[in-house]
């Protein structure tokens, strides 16, 4: 069997078109790797479908007709996207046996573009988590190990932990993720990958199981920046089935390859030098700044004064929306039900047994902040602060083209750590949450490694719908990073 491990999507596609190997060979290679993997990346595999899809792609290629953008490329699908006829769980017991009869727009776009879906990737329950330890289907293991303590399994980050880990472990070529407060960027950073959260409204949320509707946004996790552009191209669409979907024209994302970062202004927010920011990360940040300088970019200091309020604001708005979004899981219509003769009991038992602790914690927070007497002090105030955070970015972008920050305050940590205090876990999102609240596009690209050989991601935040600039900036990091 050929070793397909280090191929990117565009090279693979070239080889497929030249018939150097078939999609079926490629697909079987990944299936084999998934079967041998013990990282727990997939909740449900769809190998039979994948083989059929690969054969279909090979047919198209051999006829040289109707060849689509991602023809024959095997990918993983986060188990948050409803897939027709394929179990979709959102990592929860409450949807353990839920099989949708409809396809999410994002997965549909990918399938229509010829992607081969290998299976549904593991994730934090309802995307609530930063370590992929809240999944009902067990935690996911990061394939990377610390060079000092290589016996300890590390978290892949979350919530798209299964997607990140499966790409890092070469179980698929790329995977979909969803990002509410950092769920694409943080695991991409922890697994040494590229993770792109597009502008809010760029990818349709139809058929994507909702966590926090005003923040949720689908995006790719890939090995390279170019792969991210190819995946994003396919995933993006205006969708009349999603009222928050954007009608802005979708550019050709590969155009980022011709985008020169020379003369562009790179903003450095002073407020992102947060307490507890790991010194290795500070160093990589500095290195990356120099790298931009060397390539002719101008570095400008900017201020995002409300940054310190972003995390508490996020942890009010997201749970508030979740408390309503998850009310539908009541045991009445589908999913898990704990039977009882009494309706109230049925509700309570179903939800008590169907949801895990982290989900319950957030539902309680969300219910609380929306309650009579607390709404103004919490939810309403959070909405106001969210506006201020958006305004911060707006004025910052008058002075710069993109903003460069680290993705996370720390590198991947051992499974089991940060489990006792939820706040400690929430702090993982401190650098990714502001862009989410403002609906801005942001990419995480590995820029360096720490002393234990663990990857450190840098985040580039762009203006609304300016994915091209952050792809270009990400490409520069990818090209010139020192490893």
């Amino acid at each position, binding site marked *: 069997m050929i070793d397909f491990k280090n191929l990117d999507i565009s090279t693979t596609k070239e080889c497929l078109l030249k018939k150097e190997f078939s999609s079926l060979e490629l697909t079987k290679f990944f299936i084999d790797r998934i079967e041998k993997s013990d990282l727990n990346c997939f909740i449900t595999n769809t190998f039979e479908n994948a083989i059929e899809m690969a054969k279909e792609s090979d047919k198209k290629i051999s006829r040289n007709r109707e060849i689509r953008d991602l023809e024959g490329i095997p990918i993983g699908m986060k188990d948050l996207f409803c897939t027709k006829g394929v179990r*979709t769980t959102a990592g929860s017991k409450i949807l353990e046996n839920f099989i*949708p009869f409809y396809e999410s727009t994002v997965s549909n776009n990918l399938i229509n573009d010829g992607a081969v879906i290998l299976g549904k990737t593991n994730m934090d329950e309802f995307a609530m988590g930063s370590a992929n330890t809240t999944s009902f289907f067990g935690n996911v293991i990061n394939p990377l190990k610390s060079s000092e303590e290589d016996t300890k399994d590390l978290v892949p980050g979350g919530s798209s932990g299964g997607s990140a880990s499966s790409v890092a472990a070469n179980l698929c070529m790329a995977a979909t993720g969803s990002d509410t407060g950092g769920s694409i960027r943080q695991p991409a950073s922890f697994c040494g990958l590229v993770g792109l959260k597009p502008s809010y409204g760029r990818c349709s949320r*139809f058929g994507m199981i909702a966590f926090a509707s005003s923040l949720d946004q689908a995006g790719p996790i890939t090995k390279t920046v170019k792969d991210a552009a190819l995946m994003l191209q396919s995933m993006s669409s205006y969708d009349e089935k999603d009222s928050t979907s954007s009608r802005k024209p979708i550019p050709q994302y590969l155009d980022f390859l011709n985008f020169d970062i020379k003369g562009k202004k790179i903003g450095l927010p002073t407020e992102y030098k947060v307490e507890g920011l790991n010194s290795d990360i500070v160093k990589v940040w500095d290195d990356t700044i120099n790298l931009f300088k060397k390539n002719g970019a101008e570095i400008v200091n900017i201020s995002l004064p409300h940054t310190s309020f972003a995390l508490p604001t996020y942890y009010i708005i997201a749970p508030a929306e979740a408390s309503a979004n998850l*009310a539908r899981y009541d045991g009445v219509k589908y999913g898990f039900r704990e039977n009882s003769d009494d309706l109230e009991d049925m509700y309570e038992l179903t939800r008590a047994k169907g949801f895990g602790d982290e989900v319950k914690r957030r539902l309680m927070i969300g219910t609380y902040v929306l309650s009579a007497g607390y709404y103004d002090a919490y939810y309403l105030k959070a909405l106001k602060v969210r506006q201020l955070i958006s305004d911060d970015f707006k004025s910052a972008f008058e002075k710069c083209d993109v903003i460069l920050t680290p993705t996370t305050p720390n590198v991947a940590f051992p499974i089991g750590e940060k489990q006792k205090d939820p706040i400690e876990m929430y702090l993982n999102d401190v650098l990714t949450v502001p862009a989410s609240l403002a609906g801005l596009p942001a990419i995480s690209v590995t820029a360096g490694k720490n002393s234990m050989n663990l990857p450190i991601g840098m985040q580039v935040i762009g203006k609304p719908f300016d994915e091209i600039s952050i792809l270009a900036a990400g490409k520069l990091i990818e090209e010139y990073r020192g490893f």
Partner: protein
Amino acid sequence: MSYLIDGKTGEWELVMGLEVHAQIKSNSKLFSKASTFWGGKPNSQVELVDSGMPGALPVINEYCVDQAIKTGLSLNAKINKKSIFDRKNYFYPDLPQGYQISQFEHPIVGNGFLVIETEDGQKRIGITRIHLEQDAGKSIHDQDHQNSFIDLNRSGCALMEIVSEPDLNSPQEAAQYVKKLRAILRCIGSCDGNMERGNLRADVNVSVRKPGQELGTRCEIKNVNSIKFIQQAIEYESRRQVELLENGQNISQETRLFDPNNGETRTMRGKEESHDYRYFPDPDLPPLLINDDRIEKIKSELPELPDEKKKRFKEQYKLKDYDAEILVEDQFVSSFFEELAEKRDSKIVVSWVTVELFSYLKKKDIQLQDSKIKSKKIGNLLDLIINGSISNRQAKEIFEEYIETDLEASDFIKKKGVKQLSDKSEIEALIKSVLQKNVEMVNDYKKGKDKLFGFFVGQVMKKSKGKANPQLVNQVLKDLLSK
């Protein structure tokens, strides 16, 4: 104030406001393309949103928005150019999303009014607001002794909640208000107003106070679905409140249900059990924006409204206020009337429509619209009265049978042998024989007892077995008596 309740301690005044839920007449639901057809097989008209499936998203039905604007304009109300959809959170098996999408702080329609007829003349009833919301599904408890069933066909249908000011002061006024509102909704076609099918139902807020004093504590009677029940519920509830207050007890603010079987209201839930609905803006739906052009276009397309039509009927057809009012209550009835009155004496037409036709419909318990009776059918009969072929009385006698036959009016009376005696000499002979039998009375009449004229007419009619043409009898009798 004409309506007061007599209590032990004196008179009490009744203060009420109504919340009318009107189902919008639309082929599809407020946020989905599912059909709203009434009477379909259970759960056959359900889209993803209507059943709360994971990943389902609402998309506003612009037609329903137009209907709400139209309704607002017809109620002289302000159309809010920006309104917001909120989630109203509560658990119930027939509420599949776990929340109802409604409008809370920013409804689509603001202040307006409508005018009702009362014993003391016209009265203006304030409209506080109209908002759009989803209807819930239906729970069915009577088909199985152990299980309840849910029918989601109604789930997601568009409702307008039309909230009045507390301007209503008697059960009759409440009834007039609902009738007038229903007439307007039917006229503009935004709601069928069919209370039996529940597409118009009212929550009645009732309170009592001593005249001139502060407003009392109110109770809300939920979901009353006929005008008769509204009146009964108000009568019972206001008396209950007066009795409690006069016995030194307090009214507790609560939600009550009206039981049509015994005409009483009973507690549904107290204030302490009242829900905290935790309203917050639905993040799946952007603010609803309406521009001036849209409002102007809808305004220009409004049909003649009941009040305008009533004014016109009174002038054009010289109708009494009461007659005009009942004719304009139903658009179909008013058109039917106009078709008949076009070439005929409106006096005879109005009496035939409002007396004979209405009592026939009432007896058959059917709406004119559903009765298949054509105006031409009634017109042909009226023409026979007008040209003297049959008498009014004869026509009344055969009316019911005539309505149910397929025969032409002239053929039908021929077949029935109904004919008016219009031969002058025959009538003269009849009158002479009556006068000869009552010589003394003729003398009394001639001495000035004018009232006896009617007696003579009656005797002649009796003798002719009702067949004599009354006008001719009058005329000939006058001639003969004056000789």
